[in-house]
């Protein structure tokens, strides 16, 4: 049995104290993140990429106004040296006109988002599930690819006004079954492996792939559609780019800066960044600046609401951080939506489909990219199971198609919201997750425009 041991709050907070002491205290802040991930990745007939991956970062920020110096290391034992180097580099910064400002009230305490079943979901058990999926797929004349993951997460923050630590589990499953020229996909992400219902995912994907095996080309045109939860969640990941961040507000760009209070979507649509919504996605109580996560209503029954802020953008805007500090690899720090959720309705997906006389069911998008943040235009292709809907029932499978649509246009033409949420990771966002139900949308355009 592979022993995964948590560092624990005492050790991580102790390292941060060392770092802050060396960094001079005033204007200094530090955090550390630890991810111990086990990933069982399989393809066809074998587990081809079983990985036990450890990622550790301790970062010290010294902000004296006019700029921030950050130094990070994977070596927790070097916390003191990391703090000292941050202080040394901060001395080289040119003092600016802005002030580091009074420290906001940070979170203090020890928190847990732990699930014992997830922590105990070992490599052997995951391999067994993968083997079953691959065997069943083969027996059906199909092939199965996917990944089953268990991650143990720790984060600690320390600054002038608080010390906080959280430990959490993370379970993820993805499964693609390819059958003939068709395919079907399942994916979910949760603190709890039990909530993901992995066995149902396997059987659901097998059945759907069998139904999707001989897709017909789809004529370009405008269709009434039911979008599956993963297609809807994909759209949510554009809310940052569409202007729901403090950075966009400061630049006067995007939805919040230009259309706050306006109705831009159906009143059935409520979208929030909500890291405290129990049982869905990857709840977490604070961000890397130690600021408490606040529910941010982005679209409230179709009306443009608020943006997410980190300390820097909140200071500039004269408001409070919403707990959305983020530092992505190879990018400047920026406030980032990280726990997006489109609130569920009361309909099953089958009921949404019943409301379409002649249209499509689209389970998933692929390689979506923003074309114009101001109009919310994005492009992508449909991927995996997609079916005609005729007379309120699923009919024959259809092939992948390109589309260019507007996120807000889709949400404004929504007349039905599903009840079941599925979660998916937001790429390049730490603890980033988008959770969404199915939607019924009138007039979705497919094909080159």
């Amino acid at each position, binding site marked *: 049995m592979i022993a995964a041991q948590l560092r624990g709050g005492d050790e991580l907070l102790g390292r941060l104290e060392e770092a802050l002491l060396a960094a001079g205290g005033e204007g200094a802040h530090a955090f550390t993140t630890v991810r111990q991930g086990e990933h069982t990745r399989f393809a066809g007939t074998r587990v081809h990429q079983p990985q036990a*991956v450890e990622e550790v970062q301790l970062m010290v920020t010294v902000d004296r106004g006019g700029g921030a110096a950050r130094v990070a290391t994977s070596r927790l034992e070097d916390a003191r040296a990391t703090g000292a180097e941050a202080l040394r580099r901060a001395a080289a910064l040119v003092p600016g006109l802005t002030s580091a400002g009074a420290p906001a009230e940070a979170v203090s305490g020890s928190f847990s988002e732990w699930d014992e079943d997830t922590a105990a979901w070992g490599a052997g058990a995951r391999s067994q599930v993968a083997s079953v999926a691959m065997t069943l797929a083969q027996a059906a004349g199909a092939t199965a690819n996917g990944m089953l993951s268990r991650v143990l997460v720790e984060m600690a923050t320390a600054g002038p006004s608080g010390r906080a630590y959280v430990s959490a589990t993370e379970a993820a499953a993805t499964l693609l079954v390819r059958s003939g020229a068709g395919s079907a996909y399942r994916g979910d992400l949760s603190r709890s492996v039990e909530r993901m219902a992995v066995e149902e995912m396997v059987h659901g994907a097998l059945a759907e792939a069998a139904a999707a095996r001989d897709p017909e080309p789809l004529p370009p045109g405008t269709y009434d559609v039911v979008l599956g939860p993963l297609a809807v969640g994909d759209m949510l990941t554009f809310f940052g780019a569409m202007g729901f961040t403090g950075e966009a507000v400061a630049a006067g760009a995007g939805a919040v800066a230009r259309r706050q209070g306006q109705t831009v979507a159906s009143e059935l649509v409520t979208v929030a960044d909500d890291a405290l919504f129990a049982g869905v996605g990857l709840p977490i109580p604070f961000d890397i600046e130690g600021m408490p996560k606040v529910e941010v209503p982005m679209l409230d029954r179709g009306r443009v609401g608020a943006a997410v802020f980190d300390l820097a953008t909140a200071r500039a805007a004269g408001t409070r951080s919403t707990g959305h500090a983020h530092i992505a690899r190879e990018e400047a720090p920026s406030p980032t939506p990280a726990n997006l959720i489109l609130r569920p309705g009361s309909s099953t997906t089958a009921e949404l489909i019943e409301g379409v006389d002649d249209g499509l069911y689209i389970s998933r998008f692929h390689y979506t990219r923003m074309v114009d943040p101001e109009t919310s235009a994005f492009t992508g292709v449909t991927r995996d199971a997609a079916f005609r809907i005729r007379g309120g029932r699923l009919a024959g499978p259809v092939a992948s198609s390109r589309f260019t649509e507007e996120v807000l246009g889709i949400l404004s033409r929504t007349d039905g919201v599903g009840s079941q949420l599925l979660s998916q990771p937001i790429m390049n966002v730490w603890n980033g997750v988008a959770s969404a139900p199915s939607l019924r949308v009138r007039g979705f355009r497919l094909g080159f425009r």
Partner: protein
Amino acid sequence: MSQIATASSWAWAHSEDEARALAQEAVDLALGRGATYADARLVEVVEERLYAASGREPDWRLEQVVGLGVRVLLRGAWGFGSRVLGPASQAIEAAVAAVEMAEAQVGPNSAHLDPLPGASGHFRTPFIVDPFAVPPSTKHQLVAGLLEEALATPEVTRAVAGVNAKRQRRCFASSEGSWQVQELLETGGLLQVWAARDGEVQRRSYPNSFHGNTAAAGWEYLDELRLPAELPRVADEARALLRAPVLAAGTADLVLGPAMTALQIHESCGHALELDRIFGDEAGFAGTSFIRAEERGRMRYGSEAVTMIADPTTPGARGSFAFDDEGQPARPAVLIENGIVNDFLSSRETAQRIGRSSTAAMRADGHSFMPLCFSTHVGLRPGEGDLDALLERLGDGYYLDMDRSWSIDEKRLNFQFGTEVAWEVRRGRRTRLYRNASYGGVTPEFWGSVEAVGGPETLQVFGLPCGKGEPKQWGFVSHGAAPILVRGVRIGVAG
């Protein structure tokens, strides 16, 4: 003693002897636990980044990662384990994790590697000026000056400027006797300017839009970029785009500029020729490919003018190295020869499935993750003539450059790219500017319609990050791209 690398220090956390001992210890442990093959990568990375964006204080950061990744082949099953390395060695933990991941796999397992002799050597990126030794004031003044000048331009509402540098030492040991030490250095820069007027927002970037551009070089590369000299043009073009008409839908002949051609190579050639994708190993996330391995030597990918070469020995390119991350020596490989598929971006395991040798394309992001087939330095072989000659040959059409948005399907067939700029070309001369340009097509039809490629004097090298795998890891790749002349392309497809 502090193990944090200071601005001018090239000290590594481990001496070469220590690194070799740790890596060998991991390999020996794996063999002792029954592995038939094992390799260990001890990777140390130090990265410095200074970004300034309007409305925010500049962000200056130094990041260090030190760790060990161990890959084993045990009773026909792969296993991989990685651990960060502190002063108290944890090499054994990574090896144990790799072995136990392999042991946990439900059989039967039949993975194997044909044995190869070990390969050893040392490599260091040539450079002139160490970017970590450049005074902080030089970097801050450069970036602050760019931002100040950009924002002083009428209608410019937002700007981002940045510089970046990364040095890494990648040590590799294998059960076949390899010992390799590579010290790789890269330096890059970025400038982006947004102009706004009456609700219209337009962006121009230099030297490229997606993460700027990064070369395997020292600070001399920043000097070559001449960011301050380019800024007025970039800002003026962003403003001019505000008043430009939208490029309408239709079919047109195009010349794609080097930056756009680089992305076209990346998305529709590099990824499509990754042999693990072709075999379906990446189907669950990144997807597959329209190219099939058995069609090598027969499948027409593009026109006679299209020859693509993977050459990770290319000096100055971000995707270059001496050995890939399973220890295979870098070598040039012709992927597409006069339009015909000739080879793939392959690993040892995938190449042996088609009876060929690896093209040394097995790469991993740092120490943490299991290597995958990634692009290396994949470039388009130049043709003849400068850009003016290519536009002259185009006659009437459009010149498009620099990506604004990009999307391609999971088989790397159906693509749609948006560009920052488009100029109408009349009788071989650039005339009117258009905004919100886009084009789309199907990969082999598109490359099959390439009539000409610009000459060596038009060739540029672009280094960019790329994502692949589950969990997703970054790949750092590069593409050599000259402008291309393509006939009959659908434009204005994004509406």
